[in-house]
């Protein structure tokens, strides 16, 4: 009886998903260590951050939109477009590196703000506008160039290949450091600022937040703006890994980002998210990818299927937990079911 009560308390805890995710990550990593000798090297762990710097940044952005009960399907395409703009500016124009990066970030902010404005002002479903945004950005990437543009700018390449040593155990890239910084700032903003609490309030109930006098319109537009900025910044980090612009870059990254966020404990209905959890969500995907690389015989498309399956499991788990919770709190169950 006591055990059951403890179980119930654990399931109802806000951090339940986080614990499961962290546990799953440790188990996966442990299995990897047992099966492959190379897994035990610390550098493999650091590589998770180097390879997934973009995904971490993009996931942070998309978590903001998921928190207010929205969604953004355009992030992958924005990453691709950011890479393409950077590659084009650095290869075919005399624009300095700093200006090119700045321009890309401004584009991301403007695009995010525009999407947010249309969604909020005209009361549109976010997925339809951001789906259009996704097609728009992919198309624009092809308009700039249908072929791959390689980035050969020596200064840019040196930034991309710079490595920072971590206690002599291994090294990380600038992108990875940037990703962790973004995550930290976002976690602080969400947890400890008025703006962050407003986001949670809107996610919990938009009409209540409006009745409380919170600036709903401004916050929602800002959330999409932040997301656009994160996607563009993710694009910059992605260009450090790929050193090229191509129309099919980051294809399906929106799905990976949503999956990471959900695996990390974000509720798709809004109002619940825990950023350290989303980091583990990204890392789990990274471990699975590393598995497939170490295995060597599995094909790349297995990644998509595994991530799809994983997302599915976590969403189903969420659905069941939410249903259980609503039963426990003896609300009108009909309201929650619909």
């Amino acid at each position, binding site marked *: 009886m006591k055990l059951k009560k403890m179980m119930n308390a654990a399931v109802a805890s806000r951090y339940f998903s986080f614990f499961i995710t962290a546990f799953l990550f440790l188990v996966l990593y442990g299995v990897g260590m047992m099966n492959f000798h190379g897994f035990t090297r610390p550098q493999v762990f650091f590589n998770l951050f180097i390879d997934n710097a973009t995904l971490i940044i993009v996931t942070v952005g998309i978590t903001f939109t998921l928190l207010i009960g929205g*969604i953004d*399907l355009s992030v992958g395409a924005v990453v691709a477009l950011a890479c393409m703009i950077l590659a084009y500016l650095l290869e075919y124009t005399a624009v300095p590196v700093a200006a090119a990066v700045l321009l890309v970030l401004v584009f991301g902010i403007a695009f995010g703000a525009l999407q947010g404005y*249309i969604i909020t*002002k*005209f*009361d*549109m*479903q976010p*997925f*339809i*506008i951001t*789906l*259009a*945004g*996704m*097609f*728009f950005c*992919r*198309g*624009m990437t*092809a*308009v700039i160039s*249908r072929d791959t543009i390689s980035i050969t700018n020596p200064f840019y390449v040196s930034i991309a290949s710079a490595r920072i040593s971590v206690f002599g155990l291994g090294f990380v890239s600038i992108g990875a450091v940037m990703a962790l910084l973004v995550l930290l700032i976002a976690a602080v903003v969400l947890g400890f600022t008025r703006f962050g609490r407003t986001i949670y309030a809107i996610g919990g109930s938009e009409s209540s937040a409006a009745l409380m006098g919170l600036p709903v319109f401004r916050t929602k537009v800002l959330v999409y703006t932040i997301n656009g900025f994160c996607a563009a910044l993710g694009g910059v980090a992605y260009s450090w890994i790929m050193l090229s612009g191509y*129309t099919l870059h980051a294809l*399906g990254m*929106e*799905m990976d980002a*949503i999956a990471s966020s959900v695996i990390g404990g974000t509720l*798709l*209905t809004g109002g619940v998210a825990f950023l350290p959890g989303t980091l583990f969500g990204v890392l789990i995907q990274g471990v699975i990818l590393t598995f497939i690389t170490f295995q060597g015989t599995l*094909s790349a*498309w*297995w*990644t*998509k*299927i595994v*991530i*799809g*399956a994983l*997302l*599915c499991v976590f*969403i*189903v788990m969420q*659905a*069941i937990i939410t*249903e259980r919770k609503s039963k426990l709190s003896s609300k009108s169950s*009909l*309201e929650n*079911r*619909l």
Partner: protein
Amino acid sequence: MNWKRITSSSLFLPLLALFALLLFNVIFVDGFLSIQMTDDGRLYGRLIDILNRSSSLIILSLGMTFVIATSGIDISVGAVVAISAAVVCTLIGGRGDGVAEHPMALAILAAVAIGVLCGIWNGFLVARLKIQAVVATLILMTAGRGIAQLLTAGQIITVYYKPFSYISGTIPGNVLPTNIFIAAAMVLLVAFIMKKTSIGLFVQAVGINATASKYAGISVSLVLFVVYAFSGFCAGVSGLIESSLIRAADANNAGLNMEMDAILAVALGGTLLSGGKFYIGGSVIGAITIQTLTTTMYALGIASDQLPVIKAIAVVILCLIQSKKCQALVASWKDNRHGGNPGKAVEKA
């Protein structure tokens, strides 16, 4: 007054867009309207070509119309098209001597069945587990292409079996491509069901207010389930037509961007993306319009991967036109300009 009735008709916008596109083509493309008879008795011409190419989109938008009417969305249709194409091509097999490994009827049945299965999966997630439609179908949208690649082992399977090309080509002795008849049959079937049963009313009720429908005794989850299964069925049939058109299964490119086209067709047809009232006829005209737009753009030298820019802008504009808030804003702006009383705008909204 009469003019107002015409412009407010649901078919006005899609028909106007189609007419404008056709007019543009007639002026700028030589021999756009000419239809000739080939030596072996087939009709040939640009108009027939547009109909031929739009048939799979028409079928997809049929399924999508119902999904959107329940205020849901199915963004997995493109991937389901790829899966269905992969199934039919793998079963018939890519043997160079033109012999089918399995009977074609079996392959067709399997492809449609897998489409329905995908639809049932989506329906299960949406109707039973109450997951938001966009996220539920996003799973299949991304994983679906992986599954299709798994089926074809990452290869493009080219089918040399002759009868397979008849699905999107002409059966000897017929004047029109078969897929036009398939699309027409499905549209008629849906129209018949809408006329004779109250399923359409149920779908509409769920889209307008699911809670109220439940209290009114409608099984909301059953309606949702059927709607997504039907969308999967439509995607399965589309997959057949798409793969037959190129006589191959390309897991990466089959049905690429088709979800956008289908949504665009439905929106153009006058169905509100927020659900509720829907127009089958509008969606069909919308689908033909989209295909005409695509063909026109290709004729103007715009590449297939650049085309989404124009379609994305079209979707946003269409959504803005449909949006009640936008209409209210325009109305109040008009009233202000004419110095009329602003109360009128509120009434309209």
